[in-house]
């Protein structure tokens, strides 16, 4: 077994383990952390495929931004998972049987017979100075410009939808208005009262 293959198996096993833990651990924070692990190891797999840009983006965007936000939300919400897990045991036999059958059937089809190494040509090895970021950019903004723009519109819709559904102007909430705070005058806050000094006896 070559070193590359060894690394692949290590990453692959950790990835499957982490993905499995995401859905089985009780604590949502642990689940989120396992998801981080899953992202990290899949980034490693991409690195093995010489897709450095995608690997780095996965770590930066998903681990660095999305999962951190996610963790914040999970920690703030204080979700009680026990009602979500109700009936898990009673559904388990049926669910497991169906899932097992589907996995078996799919494995029959999507296995080596049709997607084996002899069916798909191996990717061409590139020299070390080959920039796949450049390659990605050059198709993203030419060949795939239309899907790319639609994806941008979808993100815009997501923003509008999120704001339209959650933003409310509640009466009586306390908030600061920095503009007003800056404009405040001495006379608004301070009142100078002239008092006669008391005379000593």
């Amino acid at each position, binding site marked *: 077994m070559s070193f590359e293959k060894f690394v692949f198996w290590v990453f692959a096993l950790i990835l499957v383990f982490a993905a499995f833990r995401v859905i089985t651990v009780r604590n949502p924070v642990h689940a989120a952390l396992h998801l981080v692990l899953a992202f990290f190891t899949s980034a490693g797999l991409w690195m093995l495929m010489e897709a450095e840009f995608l690997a780095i983006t996965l770590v930066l965007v998903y681990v660095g931004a999305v999962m951190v936000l996610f963790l914040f939300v999970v920690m703030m919400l204080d979700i009680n998972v026990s009602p979500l897990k109700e009936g898990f045991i009673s559904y388990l036999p049926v669910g497991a049987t169906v899932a097992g059958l589907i996995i078996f059937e799919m494995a029959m089809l999507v296995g080596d017979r049709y997607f084996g190494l002899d069916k798909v040509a191996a990717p061409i090895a590139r020299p070390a100075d080959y920039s796949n970021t450049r390659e990605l950019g050059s198709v993203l903004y030419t060949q795939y410009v239309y*899907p790319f723009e639609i994806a941008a519109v979808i993100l815009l819709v997501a923003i509008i*939808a999120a704001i339209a559904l959650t933003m409310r102007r509640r009466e009586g909430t306390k908030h600061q208005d920095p503009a007003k705070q800056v404009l405040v005058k001495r006379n608004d806050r301070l009142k100078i009262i002239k008092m006669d000094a008391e005379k000593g006896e």
Partner: protein
Amino acid sequence: MTFDMTEFMPLLPEIWVLSMTCVVLILDLFLRDSNRVVTYWLAQVTVVGALGMSVAVSGSESQVVLSGTFVADPMATLLKSFIYIVTFGAFVYARDYLRVRDLFKGEFYVLGLFGMLGMMVMVSAHNFLTIYLGLELLSLSLYALVAFSRDDARATEAAMKYFVLGALASGMLLYGISMVYGLTGSLDISVVATAIAGQGEQDIVLIFALTFIILGLAFKLGAVPFHMWLPDVYQGAPTVVTLYLGSAPKIAAFAMTMRLLAEALGGLQADWSGMLSILAVLSLALGNIVAIAQTNLKRMLAYSTISHVGFLLLGLLAGTGEGYSAAMFYTLTYAIMALGGFGMIVLLSRAGFEAEEINDFKGLNERNPWFAGMMLLLMFSMAGVPPTVGFYAKLVVLQAVINVDMVWLALVAVFFSIIGVFYYLRLIKVMYFDPPVDSTPLVAATDFQITLSINSLAVLVLGIFPGGLMALCASAII
């Protein structure tokens, strides 16, 4: 690679709608609630402008641009034109309904326009990726619209169900698409079609991919057994959203099915036609029978939608040009009928009262004979009574099915349609022969009344003169 600016010409309607929607979005922020109607008019200008542009840039040739991600062909022009017309109607019906419920916000029209843009993308997609992105653009707008009435627990529940099931369906569709990509090495519809033609029909993995794609499509169309979300969403959403959701997106879903099954996977027609026939028979049976038990009109119309989807699938599974154009005719006329049907519910509703029970239509003839007559036309058309267009649409679909020697399917369809007539006639009976329980006069803006009248009379006129639209549908299928 260089960009040729003429490549962007066929995209003119899409560019216009996107730019105008962004203008509406920004402008709306500066409007007071009393001037909100400006948003409405701008949205309508956008829709009408898009219609004009689509017709102006249309040609009789199929034109594929932008590296094969976009196609402009007669089918796209026809379907888009109907999407504009139906969206225009939905916006007219929505205005006063939203206003009396304090929901008259710019976001409704902005999301409605984005949804329309999604439909346009789906209709003229020539790449699996574009189809999927168009679908997501449409779905995302629809999820938000269903939850638009934020304080309504039923609407929120409906939106939640729609979101979860819709995401699941998208996942299925994507999985199928990824398998097709793995096997053919391309996402371009014509490349996939050529690859499949070369590969032969025996490839079992292709059929595996096809199963997932059909599953996703059936979810989006609402065919049995993937229909569970439909009645709940139709009932829970605000009526004007149900109206929008139940009309124009059906045209887009039809276009998506055509692009995926007929154009890309046409080589597997023998396989998907069998799968579709199961979906069609189940939809016809369940839709028509369960609708009988409903007392809520929105729910009843949801089950009626399921049965109409059954008919649509019948036309598609024939797999001939005749079948495709029959299915297209059926979809277009169904969108008009659904628009009118939900429009009537909106007409009868008023502040604090939703006329969504069948009993709310009692004695409509005494209250307003004109609109009772309009409802009569719409219900006759949905049931398929001549001379309305519903009859002709069912006829051409059945003809197409019989011409490919699937007489048993035609018999099943006729059998369940006859069962279905019952619940449409019950509504008519309630309108004409029951005394009114509610004698509040119907109030609606003039443009609402005119649009609804034209909408309903179109059902009759198209039924008497179906030739023009049928010819358009036939020429759209090459």
